[in-house]
């Protein structure tokens, strides 16, 4: 018997299975769809949280106050050294600019501040940290090193806020991971139970096939095809539901958290990658779930 003939027979058997138990199949597809939708939603929310954390993390800035009368050339050397050795971007803020900023931030004092002919504020370097240096410990070490440089009067890296932000970010990432794992385990459990239920309804058919001489592979293949189809269909339904949700709710959600996102962030709640993950994940779940579920009914 040719492979195409065998496959044809397996597909016919799978189609018969669907035709004769449409309700059980609908339940299996819906369960897969709901499970994958939940997973997809968890991934979308995680993506949103990550974008917010990246944005917040991206604003970690170390301000290096220079000694009075530090020559511009020395300041530039320090700035370049920082950019080369630490990374990120460093900007030299002259004393006059600092004074203007202060006047903008405290308008009630602008008259008083205008009275200064020379800015009383020191020149500073504002260094926006790269991702690798957004950790409180790393920042503390960097700050200690910079404090030893003769031209540096003081270093401010916002110790309290960075430490708190870092703790919040860690908590959110851990929470996201734990939530994702819980949803994943629940998904696999529910899908396996549902597929087992669907196959249980056809245990008699399996028994008869085995009694007339069917090999395990002969019995298994149609169920695996069914599982694959159910998984793909469930994945497609989940993707459709997520796209609909994103279309309806994304403007509001993004409006709520907009201030926490960097202006250059183009956030997609449902990315093409997530779409592929849902379809692939659905197919994999259906495939593995049905293979495992059918196994316990093969002993006849």
């Amino acid at each position: 018997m040719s492979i195409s003939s065998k496959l044809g027979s397996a597909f016919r058997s799978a189609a018969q299975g669907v035709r004769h138990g449409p309700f059980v199949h609908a339940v299996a597809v819906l369960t897969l769809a709901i499970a994958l939708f939940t997973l997809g939603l968890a991934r979308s929310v995680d993506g949103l949280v990550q974008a917010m954390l990246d944005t917040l993390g991206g604003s970690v800035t170390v301000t290096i106050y220079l000694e009075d009368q530090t020559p511009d050339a020395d300041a530039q050397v320090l700035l370049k050294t920082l950019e080369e050795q630490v990374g990120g971007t460093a900007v030299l803020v002259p004393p006059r600019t600092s004074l203007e900023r202060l006047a903008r931030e405290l308008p009630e004092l602008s008259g008083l501040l205008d009275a200064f002919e020379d800015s009383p504020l020191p020149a500073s370097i504002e260094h926006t940290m790269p991702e690798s240096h957004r950790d409180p410990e790393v920042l503390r070490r960097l700050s200690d090193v910079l404090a030893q440089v003769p031209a540096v009067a003081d270093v401010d890296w916002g110790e309290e806020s960075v430490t708190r932000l870092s703790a919040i970010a860690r908590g959110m990432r851990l929470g996201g991971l734990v939530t994702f794992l819980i949803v994943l385990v629940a998904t696999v459990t529910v899908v396996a139970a549902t597929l087992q239920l669907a196959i249980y309804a056809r245990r008699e058919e399996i028994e008869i096939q085995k009694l007339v001489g069917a090999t395990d592979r002969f019995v298994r293949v149609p169920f695996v095809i069914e599982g694959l189809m159910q998984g793909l269909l469930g994945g497609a339904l989940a993707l459709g539901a997520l796209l609909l949700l994103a279309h309806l709710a994304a403007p509001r959600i993004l409006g709520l958290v907009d201030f926490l996102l960097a202006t250059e962030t183009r956030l997609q709640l449902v990315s093409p990658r997530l779409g592929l993950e849902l379809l692939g994940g659905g197919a994999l779940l259906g495939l593995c779930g049905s293979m495992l579920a059918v196994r316990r009914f093969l002993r006849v």
Partner: protein
Amino acid sequence: MIELFHVSKAYPGDPPVLHDINLRIDKGEFVFLTGPSGAGKSTLLKLIFCAEQATRGQILVGGRNVARIRESAVPFLRRNIGVVFQDFKLLPHRTVEDNVALTLDVLGVPRHEARERVYQMLKRVGLAHKRDVLPPRLSGGEQQRVVIARALVNDPTILLADEPTGNLDPARTLEIMDLLGDVHVRGTTVVVATHDISLLTRYQRRTIRIEAGRLVADEDGVALARRLAGR
């Protein structure tokens, strides 16, 4: 063809269902396996087609020791043994044709060839006109004939029938027994488990009697019929 040496079967915690059975059935024989309900007839048949494993002893089927057969080899053994189940074991949502074709699907017979062979088999059991009907719409006798057709469609060398007339009226019983007789005439080894004494006297075949899991008699059919008539 079928040989059993000191075969016993027991389930944990229960007394043995079969105890030290020794038996030989030659190729082309027609044998009745009889005894009261629960004597172990069905279990003996199950051991032969590997639906159960013997606790002790050896079972040779066509020269092959099925008591020690690998699990992966069981399907290939079953393809040579047609089984008529007491409870039919038909798929209620598949047509008569599909039910019978199942045996050929398993063998990988191409669809068009399978359809032709199924049609010929259904003609032989007198059900060609009902090939598109679902089993629940058939009478008990018709369902039993479908089961026989399914068991025979791949020309097995052995046919095991477990109480094939158990649920049938006398007219249908004769119909089924004639069909099994016809199968035997064509060279198939037939083993029929039954507790119906009237079948034994009517058909006068070798009869093996099992009681409480022990083989208590192995008689020639004619002698048995004379003995029963002389009671």
